[in-house]
């Protein structure tokens, strides 16, 4: 911002603040210590009059940075919503008066806290601006859909219906995927009793009729680069010809492969042609075209056993450990193929838990029973094949006995294996300048961190967040259908619509330079001071979203539209050349530096707490609402993500006389709750090296502690602060007080 910085500090006296602390002194501190141009007190800052006072200063006095010294930044956001100025918050209500006792003894330290938070709010103001649109932002409305199965076709038609052009890439020579190889589908409408047509033909004709959808058959992606709003993809046909198209966002609907039933010889697969998978039975049903389904050698089928969880939900070598979700329903569907054609055919489903959920599931189960499909709770041990006769050996779990059944056909409910391409944890990216496309890859991304999307678990490209199912770790690329999670056709259709929503949203946001979830709308972007960079690559490696590439000279390339603004790169950078307009090493560093550090004889230690704004900080707020007290010596600074913590903050704090530093981030590891996926984890690793810093300063290692704090830790978060205060009492004050 070219204009001169003019900071207004506004100190609220409401909610008891005026009764508990000397706001006049705070106003004085704001101007004298922190150099605010204007400092005003108000008895009720968030009411219309208070807000007007601030707006008047913005309009008439040229105030362009506003420090609201009142309640938590989480409160009263609607009131303190000023346009085109930078706003910071000093938290006196939840951060000071609600966590301190109203006693004479506590008065002085409470005032110290309030003064410091005033200084900090003004100091932060000085180092943040109003982010402007980046020049990098580009607007491209075309959506690329990878995979022409039911998920991909649905995504394509849904995007077209919303008004977006689509390129649909299909590896094989025809659209339809697994659905096209099915005879019927599980019913999607009540009464959920009779089978429905797959809907593939309608979708294909809709696609063919659409002037918005371009289909690329026999095609794969050989290189995908760029970022939301400016993706570029090489689409290569089987014959080797390549076209390059530009896109705004990508939907990955690469589907699943059927589990290789050859790994199930104990179930007779490969030993008899009459032991088939569900997919093979669907192919047989398609061939029968409504007539009686015959065995491969043309014989009548009078009895069928469906073996559920074949090679699934099992820890055995080569088996799938998970449940594929659709197979119970699919077996009922397939049993109906027989029953609808000839009710005299025996169809028995052998299951351990019948998983047919929701309104439709139970109705469909009942529908199967009404048609005479029988169900046996049992676990199959073996399918004996001798000649044309098949004997299914199983333990009947209800009758508690080992038994067997002779049937003409055995159908194995094998699971779905995600077509998620390369596992980038195992297959690294080519060095810059040595690019080669990998035929195993789905996307062939040129991203530094690897050619495909990171896999969450068991090969699926799912999101880890329960509340945010589409938040993959590649901005602007959304997975849907069975590549995201095992699912049936109905779910895949819904899923494709959801992914399409995210894709068109990514396009619009990229066009305006706005961040995607969870900092949706944030206009800031990483600003990089190239001349200071040492090319250490830490930012490239640590970015949880793979946003950063390397250019030919090996400098980081930030790809703003891929960035989620977590600040992990900023925390990683040893030479501090990365910052955001509204968040930087300085915007935090200057806050901690402006805190008044009393000399050691005053016996007022100082603890710096860096608290993740997503979980730890709200937890402390709620602790305050419950009036849980904590040490008056702590100064808490909310940070975007623990991953954004730069070691310099710790070093600076210790150097300037803080007695302890507490870091609070989200849960890491397998069940991570970090909203930036790996931020908390990376910070933990980074902080494990803080001992060196402490050693070089000859300080005790206990002075720095790192914690995982959940938003519900309303007792524990204050306790962590108090424990640090106790630790300091035990080991003594820092010698670095000046």
């Amino acid at each position, binding site marked *: 911002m070219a204009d001169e910085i003019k900071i207004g500090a506004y100190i609220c006296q*409401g*909610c008891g603040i005026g009764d508990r602390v000397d706001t006049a002194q705070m106003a004085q501190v704001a101007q004298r210590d922190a150099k605010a141009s204007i400092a005003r007190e108000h008895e*009720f800052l*968030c009411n219309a009059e208070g807000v007007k006072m601030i707006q008047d200063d913005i309009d008439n006095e040229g105030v362009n940075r506003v420090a609201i010294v009142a309640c938590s930044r*989480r*409160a*009263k956001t609607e009131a303190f919503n000023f346009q085109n100025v930078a706003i910071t918050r000093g938290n006196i209500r939840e951060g000071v008066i609600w966590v301190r006792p109203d006693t004479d003894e506590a008065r002085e330290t409470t005032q110290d806290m309030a003064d410091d938070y005033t200084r900090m709010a003004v100091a932060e103001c000085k180092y943040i601006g109003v982010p402007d649109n980046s020049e990098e932002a580009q607007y491209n409305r075309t959506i690329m859909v990878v995979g022409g199965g039911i998920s991909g076709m649905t995504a394509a038609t849904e995007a077209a219906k*919303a*008004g*977006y052009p689509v390129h649909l890439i299909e590896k094989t020579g025809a659209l339809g995927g697994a659905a096209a190889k099915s005879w019927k589908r599980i019913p999607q*409408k009540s*009464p959920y009793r009779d089978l429905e047509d797959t809907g593939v033909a309608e979708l294909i004709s809709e696609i063919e009729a659409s002037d918005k959808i371009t289909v690329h058959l026999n095609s794969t992606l050989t290189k995908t680069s760029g970022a939301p709003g400016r993706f570029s993809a090489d689409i290569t046909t089987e014959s080797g010809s390549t076209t390059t198209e530009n896109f705004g966002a990508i939907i990955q609907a690469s589907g699943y492969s059927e589990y290789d039933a050859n790994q199930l010889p104990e179930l007779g697969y490969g030993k008899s042609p009459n032991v088939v998978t569900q997919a093979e039975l669907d192919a047989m049903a398609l061939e029968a075209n409504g007539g009686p389904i015959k065995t491969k050698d043309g014989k009548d089928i009078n009895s069928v056993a469906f073996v559920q969880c074949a090679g699934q939900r099992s820890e055995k070598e080569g088996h799938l*450990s*998970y*449940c594929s979700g659709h197979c119970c329903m699919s077996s009922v569907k397939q049993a109906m193929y027989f029953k609808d054609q000839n009710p005299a055919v025996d169809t028995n489903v052998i299951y351990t*838990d*019948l*998983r047919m*959920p*929701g*309104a439709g*599931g*139970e*109705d469909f189960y009942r529908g199967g029973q009404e048609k005479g499909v029988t169900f046996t*709770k049992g676990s199959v041990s073996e399918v004996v094949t001798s000649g044309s006769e098949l004997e299914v050996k199983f333990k009947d*779990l209800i*009758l*508690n006995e080992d038994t067997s059944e002779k049937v003409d056909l055995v159908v194995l409910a094998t699971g779905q294996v995600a077509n998620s391409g390369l596992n980038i944890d195992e297959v690294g990216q080519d060095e810059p300048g040595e690019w080669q496309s990998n035929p195993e890859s789905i996307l062939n991304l040129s991203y530094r961190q690897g050619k495909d999307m990171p896999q969450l*678990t068991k090969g*699926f490209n*799912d999101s880890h*967040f*329960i*509340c*945010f*199912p*589409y938040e993959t770790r590649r901005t602007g690329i959304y997975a849907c259908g069975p590549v995201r999670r*095992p699912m049936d056709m109905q*779910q895949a259709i*819904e*899923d494709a*619509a*959801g992914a*399409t*929503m995210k894709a*068109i949203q990514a396009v*619009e946001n990229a066009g305006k330079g706005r961040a995607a979830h*969870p900092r*949706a*709308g944030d206009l800031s972007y990483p600003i990089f001071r190239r001349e200071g960079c040492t090319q250490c690559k830490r930012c490239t490696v640590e970015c949880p979203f793979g946003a950063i590439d390397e250019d030919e000279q090996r400098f980081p390339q930030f790809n703003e539209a891929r960035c989620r603004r977590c600040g992990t790169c900023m925390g990683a950078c040893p030479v501090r050349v990365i910052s955001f307009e509204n968040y930087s090493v300085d915007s935090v560093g200057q806050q901690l530096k402006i805190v008044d550090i009393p000399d050691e004889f005053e016996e007022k230690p100082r603890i710096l707490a860096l608290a993740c704004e*997503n*979980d730890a900080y*709200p937890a402390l707020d*709620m602790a305050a609402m*419950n009036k849980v007290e904590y040490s008056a010596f702590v100064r808490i600074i909310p940070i975007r993500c623990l991953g954004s913590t730069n070691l310099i903050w710790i070093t600076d704090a210790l150097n300037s006389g803080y007695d302890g530093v507490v870091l609070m981030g989200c*849960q890491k590891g397998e*069940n991570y709750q970090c909203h930036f996926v790996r931020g908390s984890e990376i910070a933990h690793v980074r902080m494990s090296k803080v001992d060196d810093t402490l050693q070089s300063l000859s300080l005790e290692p206990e002075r720095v502690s790192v914690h995982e704090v959940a*938003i*519900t830790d309303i*007792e524990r978060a204050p306790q962590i602060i108090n424990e640090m205060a106790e630790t300091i009492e035990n080991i003594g004050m820092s010698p670095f007080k000046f």
Partner: protein
Amino acid sequence: MADIIATNETILVVGGGISGMTAALEAAEYGKQIILVEKNPSVGGRVSQLYKYFPKLCHPTCGQEINQRRIKANPNIRMMTMTEVTSVSGEEGNYSVTLTSQPRYVNENCTACGDCGDVVEAEFDDDYNYGLGKRKGVYLPHKMAYPQRYVLDPQIVGTPDATKAAEACKYGAIDLDMQEETNTITVGAIIWATGWKPYDANKIQPYGYDRIQNVITSVEFERLSDPHGPTGGKILRPSDGKEAKDIAFIQCAGSRDQNYLKHCSRICCMASLKQTTYVRERYGDEGKASIYYIDIRAIDRIDDFYQKVQADENVHFIKSKVANIVEDKASGNPVLRGVDTEGYNRYENPHELVVLAVGMEPSVPAGDFPVTVKVNEHGFIEQDESNGAIFAAGCSADALDVNRAVQSATASALRAIQVVNRVAGTEG
């Protein structure tokens, strides 16, 4: 509220639970104007009453915090609490909707400082805690409530308590003259996300919820386990306030049963598996859980959570729909009777507490929709062309877990956008 600006490019979202919030946010972050109406004084819905989510065992408040911040940061969303849709007319791309708002008696001056609550004496059953605790006549629904603004219970209007509350407020935030308000707005599409309610356990006569104190519901158990709940997270049983360490979970309490709800509610198996971890978390090796089930429906990749709980020696699985429960008068223990069908074993098992995994019932009964939509026999809205531009999201559409509800809400946001984009003529 005269300043509601809505056009046929606006999307109305009915219901501010996780599905409604998601649908509103996704569409707003795309760039559409949204009106989000919620019947209760704060958004968040059922999930804000849960302690943890399966299978991650993370806290719903965590996602709520993000969603609330997204709302705060987004000028495209106009949120109206204590508001219901009372009528809808018109057609796809041009609906006229009447919204009726109940008086909150607290205006936007409220700072949530709590002074009013301190002086009011009247107490009422706390709905947030399913009646397991009390709240004041002026209250903040819960610590995460958004908007962070108190509510004055209409039951105290006209009593000295109301005057006391008004006098205690230094900021003129209490306005006892507030009246019910009606607004008619125009919108292009409607996302219906009114969610679910727990099935009324009183109707399941053999399980004695109405007469045995130590038989509670799964939603109540969430409140008992939550550190923010009425017991501070201690699992104290209602009859004697003792800690309950041996807990039975009864699946399909009201679900998969033509006497009650015919459908499978999908979430209950995973919810009970999750709740066994609460017992183990609190009591370690002393905590015991028994799950009485028909089928364990831990569907797709989250089956590994079931496998993990199965491996826990202190968690027992009994394949049985419990026949009935009687109370052992001396101990207050409910005694479960039935037959373990795996091999036919009759049991009569006492437990310290019984949790009924109650089913999911659509919040709005089929006949009560203010508009004609296609509703199936279970009360869920079906996707159908005859619904015009009214799209169901989350548990209005089916019994769904949070993850699937959010997915469904995201999909419904797209369908609404398709309509208003057509209206706007921006489909290019």
